[in-house]
């Protein structure tokens, strides 16, 4: 027999572990599934309120709603408006929420709510077509003034961005010259800026932004200037020429013609209120993955009943890992290889102390009864079968007595797997006859110790969270167990067992 090289084995184990960890890291980064339980993320809840007076007849109200606002991701959208038909319409570069109703009269209020998650990486898509730059026709003397200001700005700049900055600076009241005073008034400032930029060949438009502050009501949108630099739209503060979108600015309207259109109503107005909420990061991740189609990778798509079953099943590998470690590295003797895991699973359902009491009482009563069975000299199969029935009697008896005495915990006995308990009793009893009570105590205590360790590991909230949300981490557990299968070193218990060898060293 030849010794095969173990290198391929170690490479395979390494790949398993690496695959498990990298998948988990990828899912953490990409889907935002948190490593820890109870992690919170801020979410902005913004509510747009539309008020108008309906003239008798049908009404169609259409509100521009955000599409890929820079710095934010949209989590949920919903409308509240009794009696109205509602839909969200995507049409050529703008998204609109539309309400409609046949017979309306009197003052009306419509609500649109959306939740936004701050995300520094969120960027709007790059436009497919170059935006057009319509030229404006100015009468004299405005035409000359515009041309002079544009020439002045052009002379001091090199790029569309610097051109825009220079133009804004030239238009400010403190730097005004005769030309600008002629053109600018308080009302038309931003429109003029846009017209002038378009005139000079730089595509420009007005965007409306909302400054996010916690618990503000009745807020209005603030206008911002956007120019197209050949690659994407850049946002400028029209007063200070500051470039970029501040963190607390949500661009509600970009590139759409109008914010609100109401057909069949008058005196319409929009106002915004907002609230900063915190949402568990996990809930956020599942809501998002459900909406973006990556949900099939997680267990949250399953019905609740199956989910809770998987929650339990996915804990089992941890128990198996604990048993493997305790037996291979520590060297604790247990009765039955995986009996401790099953007991630990039962403990997870019963909690530790009631579970321990129930388990010990069932096993000790069972051992007493098994003593009588062994004097009958039965064959193995019928002995075990009889024992299973006796175990069921014992658990039923304990449950009823416990319930009558007012302990609801008596009922938890039923969580223990009957067949496993019957086998445990059988094994313990044979052990007692063959090796004596001491060995029974050693193995029984060993099994319980391993079961309690496995229980503590499996009942840790973090363990449940990681195994359920990162099932790929089980590859790591598998790798560790495989590695342990190759462990040829001394067990901890052997350091004690071989102690008398000191004399020969």
């Amino acid at each position, binding site marked *: 027999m030849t010794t095969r090289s173990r290198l391929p084995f170690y490479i395979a184990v390494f790949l398993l572990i690496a695959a498990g960890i990298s998948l988990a890291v990828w899912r953490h980064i990409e889907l935002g599934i948190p490593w820890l339980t109870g992690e919170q993320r801020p979410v902005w809840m913004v509510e747009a309120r539309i008020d108008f007076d309906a003239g008798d007849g049908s009404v169609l109200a259409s509100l521009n709603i955000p599409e890929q606002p820079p710095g934010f991701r949209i989590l949920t959208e919903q409308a509240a408006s009794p009696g109205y038909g509602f839909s969200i319409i995507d049409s050529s570069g703008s998204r609109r929420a539309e309400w409609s109703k046949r017979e309306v009269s009197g003052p009306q209020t419509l609500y649109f709510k959306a939740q936004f998650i701050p995300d520094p990486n969120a960027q709007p898509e790059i436009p497919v077509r170059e935006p057009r730059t319509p030229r404006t026709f100015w009468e004299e003397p405005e035409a000359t003034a515009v041309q002079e200001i544009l020439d002045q700005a052009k002379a001091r700049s090199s790029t569309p961005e610097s051109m825009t900055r220079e133009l804004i600076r030239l238009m400010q009241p403190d730097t005004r010259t005769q030309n600008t005073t002629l053109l600018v008034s308080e009302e038309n400032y931003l429109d003029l800026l846009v017209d002038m930029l378009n005139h000079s060949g730089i595509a420009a438009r007005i965007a409306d932004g909302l400054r996010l502050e916690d618990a503000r009501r009745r807020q209005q949108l603030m206008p911002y200037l956007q120019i197209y630099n050949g690659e994407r739209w850049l946002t400028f503060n029209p007063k200070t020429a500051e470039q970029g979108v501040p963190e607390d600015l949500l661009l509600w309207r970009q590139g759409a013609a109008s914010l609100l259109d109401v057909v069949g109503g008058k005196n319409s107005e929009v106002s915004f209120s907002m609230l900063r909420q915190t949402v568990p990061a996990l809930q956020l991740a599942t809501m998002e993955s459900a909406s973006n189609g990556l949900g099939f990778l997680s267990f949250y798509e399953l019905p609740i009943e199956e989910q809770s079953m998987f929650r339990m099943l996915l804990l089992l590998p941890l128990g198996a890992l604990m048993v493997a470690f305790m037996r291979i590295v520590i060297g604790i003797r247990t009765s039955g290889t995986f009996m401790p895991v099953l007991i630990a699973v039962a403990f997870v359902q019963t909690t530790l102390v009631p579970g321990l009491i129930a388990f010990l009482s069932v096993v000790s009563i069972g051992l007493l009864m098994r003593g009588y069975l062994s004097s009958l000299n039965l064959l193995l199969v019928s002995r075990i079968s009889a024992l299973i029935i006796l175990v069921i009697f014992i658990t039923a008896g304990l449950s009823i007595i416990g319930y009558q005495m007012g302990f609801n915990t008596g009922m938890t006995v039923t969580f223990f797997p009957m067949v496993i308990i019957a086998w445990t009793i059988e094994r313990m009893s044979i052990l007692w006859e063959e090796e004596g009570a001491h060995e029974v105590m050693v193995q029984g205590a060993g099994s319980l110790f391993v079961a309690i360790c496995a229980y503590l590991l499996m009942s840790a909230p973090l363990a449940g969270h990681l195994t359920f949300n990162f099932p790929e981490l089980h590859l790591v557990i598998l790798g560790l167990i495989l590695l342990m*299968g190759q462990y040829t070193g001394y067990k901890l218990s*052997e350091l004690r067992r071989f102690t008398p060898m000191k004399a*020969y060293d």
Partner: protein
Amino acid sequence: MDWISPRSLKRLGMLNMNRRNVDYIARYNERSSYPLVDNKLKTKLVVAEYGVKTPKLLQVVRQQHEISHFREMAEDLAGFAIKPAKGSGGKGITVITGRDGDEYIKASGSRVDSPFLERHLTNILAGLYSLAGTPDVAIVENLVESAPSLAKYSHQGVPDIRIIVFQGYPVMAMLRLATTASDGKANLHQGAVGVGLDIGSGRGLNAVQFNRPITLHPDTGLALENIQIEAWDEMLEMASRCYEATGLGYMGVDLVVDANEGPLLLELNARPGLAIQMANGRGLLPRLRAIESLKRPHFTPLERSRFAMDTFASS
């Protein structure tokens, strides 16, 4: 608590459980050979072809109706042993040492009648003592009468000799003596005394009970260091032959010395324990590695046992 450091264990070359399972049993023992050693009847038949003697087989009881023949056969026997073929750890073995009228005298001195023995045979056939409760056969063997030179050391029971055979080379040996603590059984963890034996000469080296060194037998009070096994080279060669018979690279061979027949094979074990190292006061690993690094292994059992006697002799 008293501990020994892993480094000194390594220095002593102590074989441990994990390494035994991974590096020796899993690597050198073919799974398909296990039934040969787990079934005493098969062991008996296969080693007989290789000239290894076992206690004389008197009868095999395979079916319930064959039990009636048992009484006829046992009629003119003084002593015999009834064993389940697939029993482990001495379970279900009944030893009859003599007769008193219609009654049989057990090794412990108690008397039983033939219906008791027939019921015992029924239990064996039904698998009461076999691993996992599978149906079994009962074998009836001639009683082993321990050679007096060894029997005097043991309290009840027959002293047996465990030899670890690695790739056909006997590498370590010990004598197991029953005590009152072990209830007449030769299991070390139940309190039997283990006496390490020098592979080179068959002399006692060192004795332990419950893993503690002792010098006198706790019941008989005899000094254990002067034990000398007779016909030692013959026993080593016998143990070595079992390798050809079973093909198991790492096994324990249990031998007894019969007063009339000389050395007999009692049973083989595919997963021999580690306590033999404590009885010898030295580790198995250096010897196992010496065998593994042999460039040209010896082909005959005689050559292998000679080689082992030369190489592993103490002093």
